[in-house]
């Protein structure tokens, strides 16, 4: 049982814990000034919660003190800087056999693998809505993998691949549990809201349509940023981009259509390719043409055909799974 529950019932606020973490990191830097030390001591003395937070954060060092330094180094040190996920999965592998390791590591990164393991998933081309135990509605875009983990303390969606649109419901639980979407780049916390999270290879994208969310990059809590309705940003594990305006058309996919407003053909094709197995691209000479209209996402062949009706492009079907959009002859 966590010690905090024995010592004291009142939880410490996130703000106080963050301040304590910032102080401790400052003092550990090795170049903290005498003033830093004094100011930190004053901060700790200023409120009982400050000191409690300090003690909680010191837990790592306290545990480490139980082990001779040299032993800890040899046992815990790792080669280079592997993601912790990798090691855990490597352990999971022990039952399967080390021979397949390299291939497995590569496979594990793919969306196909993520979809096969996640509790909720959609095939390419599929859009599906689910209702969670608290009444929250989640729409899964094509090629999405999602795990749902609700417990007494938080409501968490683990986004492993793809894109989701979330419309949160009021939590029926007696104590308020935060609603969070996590992916490998960080966490998005909903503050009563409708929003969209998309996981891309190197970053994630959030768009807020109602209420407010807080985005917390995985590696740096001080980079957290709040987004209000009509705002969006992209983030990776380190930082958030500047806020950008989002248009309502961004949620059209949840109704199975792509609403294009003066959209570049290159972007249109990228968007459509998410809903279609195989290869779909466009040639450079049509990439910058603009298109507006409503296109069906569940029938991408028709969407492409409609595109060819409104723009001077032609569709080249090399096979059903290899299509390119080129300038009309």
């Amino acid at each position, binding site marked *: 049982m966590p010690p905090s529950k024995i010592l004291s019932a009142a939880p410490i606020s996130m703000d106080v814990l963050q301040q304590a973490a910032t102080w401790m*990191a400052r003092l550990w*830097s090795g170049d903290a000034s005498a003033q830093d030390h004094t100011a930190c001591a004053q901060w700790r003395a200023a409120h009982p919660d400050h000191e409690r937070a300090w003690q*909680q954060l010191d837990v790592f*060092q306290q*545990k480490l003190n139980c082990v001779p330094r040299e032993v800890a180094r040899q046992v*815990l040190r790792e080669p280079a800087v592997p993601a*912790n996920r990798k090691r855990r999965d490597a352990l999971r592998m022990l*039952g399967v056999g080390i021979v397949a390791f390299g291939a497995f590591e590569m496979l594990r990164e793919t969306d196909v693998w993520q979809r096969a393991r996640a509790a909720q998933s959609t095939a390419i081309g599929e859009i599906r809505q689910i209702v969670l135990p608290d009444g929250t509605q989640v729409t899964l875009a094509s090629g999405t993998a999602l795990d749902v983990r609700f417990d007494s303390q938080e409501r968490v969606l683990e986004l492993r691949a793809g894109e989701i649109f979330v419309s949160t419901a009021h939590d029926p639980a007696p104590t308020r549990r935060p609603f969070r979407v996590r992916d490998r780049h960080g966490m998005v916390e909903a503050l009563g809201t409708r929003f969209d999270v998309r996981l891309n290879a190197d970053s994630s994208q959030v768009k807020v349509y109602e209420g407010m969310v807080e985005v917390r990059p995985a590696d740096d809590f001080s980079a957290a940023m709040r987004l209000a309705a009509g705002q969006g940003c992209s983030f990776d*594990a*380190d930082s958030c981009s500047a806020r950008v305006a989002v248009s309502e058309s961004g949620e059209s996919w949840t109704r199975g259509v792509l609403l294009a407003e003066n959209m570049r053909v290159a972007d249109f094709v990228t968007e459509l390719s998410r809903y279609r197995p195989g290869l779909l691209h466009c040639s450079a000479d049509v990439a910058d043409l603009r298109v507006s209209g409503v296109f069906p996402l569940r029938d991408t062949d028709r969407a492409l055909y409609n595109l060819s009706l409104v723009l001077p492009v032609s569709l080249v079907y090399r096979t059903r799974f290899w299509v390119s959009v080129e300038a009309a002859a």
Partner: protein
Amino acid sequence: MSVAEFAPSSPLESLYAEHHGWLRGWLRKKLGNAFDAADLAHDTYLRILSTGRVPQAEEARQHLTQIANGLVIDLYRRRQIESAYLDAIANLPEPLAPSEEERALVIEALVEIDTILHALPPKARAALLLCRLEGLSYREIAEQLQVSVSSVEKYIATGLLACAQAVYGPLQ
């Protein structure tokens, strides 16, 4: 943890009666020995008892294997840590060699630290290890991770916060 919640012929009892047999068999195949299998099968039920939530009949099998699988991974990891630890102290001269009891305490602490480290984001974890185990300065860590010194300070702070979270439960 309360045992009183489970009345006689409780769902837990029937869960035990119906599934304990194959769970042990499944674990024995995975682990290759009956003693560990019996231990982990027992621990699997203890886990369920401590959460106080017995799975519905139709999802029982999946639920039990999920918990048992987690315990198998924990056991592998613990064995790895034990053997790494024994390697580390193998070369100590006789008078410095830790007693049986000291060993047990150190291994316990190592397992706990390892569990905490697993909960950290990759860069925060790397920064913490380099700082506290290797004794590197933030500047040296910054060079290794190829980030700025101020980023290292943020990674350390984020790592400390995540450690607290791993030990004391999710923060509000």
